[in-house]
């Protein structure tokens, strides 16, 4: 997540023309989404899961199969782009892009270093949560536009599920926001970096320590938001073939696929920023310019760690039924997160 900014360290950028800055930003945004998604696919989907099932995964393309993703991309690009005859063509064709757009918009608010960010928005996390809901529309479009019953059921399930889990996701964040007293993601990172635990500031104060309940709720809701097992009813392949993606092939399927993993990466990054201190690692001064270089790497490292959890759950657990999922969200997660907010608020006032 390289960075482009108006402020000091990258002074060269200040002299560039608007179109140059814009294209650099676009490339950085693409890199931030695609490189992270590629890393996650390789490290987790190809390797971790294979090891979990005591096999090796792809080994032929490149050393230890590291170029497998390029091969897969090439394969998908060659495939015929099939559009069902009775599909709603416009809706069907644009749906994957809508899903992907929400992912790209999410990256915008993520800070990757003290000066490395795309926009500094005081509503950062609020914007992220709002933008992430856009993908629901894309999924519903895909489900409706495919003119397939499996897709329709998958799309409807996805919508119900995503709406149900937006709430705990948001409510879990509120605890962090209360504690950090800001919605700006950069400030949240700095608050954690400069925080101290009972006067000891050795590791800052990552919010996972105080907001552990919020973190747990956030990760569970995240799992559902990303439609990963145990909450993958929308794509449940043993029931609905692949749910809303059933009729897609070729490039458009690839876009969905990228969208899935890129969103996993970006959401893990948000979780890392909110709960694990983002680009900051203990032992260095948070203001140091070094973080503009190693910050993105630290963040990617934390993303890989958090998404390891996501994929570990995904490949170990069976999936819930739709009604059980809703029950979990409305009966347990939302009351718990409300309680979390309450306790956090009370403690905040008392302290």
């Amino acid at each position, binding site marked *: 997540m390289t960075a482009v900014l108006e402020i000091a360290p990258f002074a060269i950028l200040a002299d560039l023309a608007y179109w140059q800055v814009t294209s650099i930003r676009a490339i950085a945004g693409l890199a931030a989404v695609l490189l992270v998604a590629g890393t996650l696919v390789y490290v987790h989907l190809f390797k*971790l899961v294979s*090891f*979990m099932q005591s*096999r*090796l995964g792809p*080994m032929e393309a490149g050393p230890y199969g590291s170029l497998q993703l390029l091969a897969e991309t090439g394969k998908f690009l060659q495939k015929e782009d099939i559009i069902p005859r009775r599909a709603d063509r416009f809706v069907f064709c644009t749906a994957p892009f809508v899903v992907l757009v929400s992912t790209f918009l999410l990256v915008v608010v993520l800070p990757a270093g003290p000066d490395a960010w795309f926009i500094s928005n005081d509503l950062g996390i609020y914007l992220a949560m709002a933008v992430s809901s856009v993908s629901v529309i894309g999924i519903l479009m895909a489900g409706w536009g495919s003119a397939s019953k499996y897709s329709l059921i998958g799309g409807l399930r996805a919508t119900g599920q995503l709406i149900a889990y937006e709430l705990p996701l948001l409510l879990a964040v509120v605890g962090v926001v209360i504690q950090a007293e800001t919605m700006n993601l950069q400030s949240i990172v700095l608050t954690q970096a400069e925080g101290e635990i009972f006067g000891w500031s050795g590791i800052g104060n990552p919010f996972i320590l105080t907001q552990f309940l919020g973190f747990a709720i956030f990760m569970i809701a995240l799992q559902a938001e990303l439609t990963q097992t145990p909450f993958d009813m929308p794509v449940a392949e043993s029931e609905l073939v692949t749910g809303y993606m059933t009729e897609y092939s070729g490039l458009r399927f690839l876009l969905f696929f990228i969208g899935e993993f890129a969103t996993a990466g970006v959401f893990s990054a948000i979780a890392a920023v909110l709960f694990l201190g983002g680009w900051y690692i203990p032992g260095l001064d948070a203001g140091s310019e070094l973080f503009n270089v190693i910050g993105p790497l630290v963040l990617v490292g934390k993303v890989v760690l958090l998404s390891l959890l996501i994929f*570990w759950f995904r*490949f170990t*657990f069976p999936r819930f039924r739709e009604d059980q999922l809703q029950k979990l969200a409305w009966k347990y997660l939302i009351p718990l997160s409300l309680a979390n907010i309450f306790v956090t608020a009370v403690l905040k006032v008392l302290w």
Partner: protein
Amino acid sequence: MKLIPGLVKGLAVTGATVVRTVFPKRGLRTLIPAPSKGADTVQYPHVKEAPPTRARGVIALHEGNCTACMLCARECPDWCIYIEGHKEKAPPRRPGGKPRLVNKLDRFDIDYALCMFCGICVEVCPFEALFWSPEYEFSEPRIADLLHDKSRLSEWMETVPDFEDYETGSVAKKLKVPPT
């Protein structure tokens, strides 16, 4: 209420498998990742698992023993064996004797696209002319190319392993593979 929830136990099982796969026990070098040793799969074209001796891979023909008696072709459940032969005069066994009539094999084809590897032909052959070989890499790009003739079948004779010993308590007689 159980002490450890089943969800955690499940995570432990998959996690343990990851550790066992990446770090197979290798004495002092336990912490060096060696997934290709720890995994239970083999990388097929590079590493090959040896099939057991009895594996029914492909049928090999001992051409010298075949008398074109057609028993195998008749017993085959899906009629995938094609045999043609003719009678030929052979020199007498003892000098001065009468010339003999022997069956000469002209054609012995097995259509592996039809064969279902039941092994009945090998079993019914009274002259020890057919054998199972564990060789399994004989796929062809076209289905018609799976019709293999007697020269190809005879080549496989070299891959036929010796019959293995029997388990204790058996009274079966161990057979021998005739030299080609």
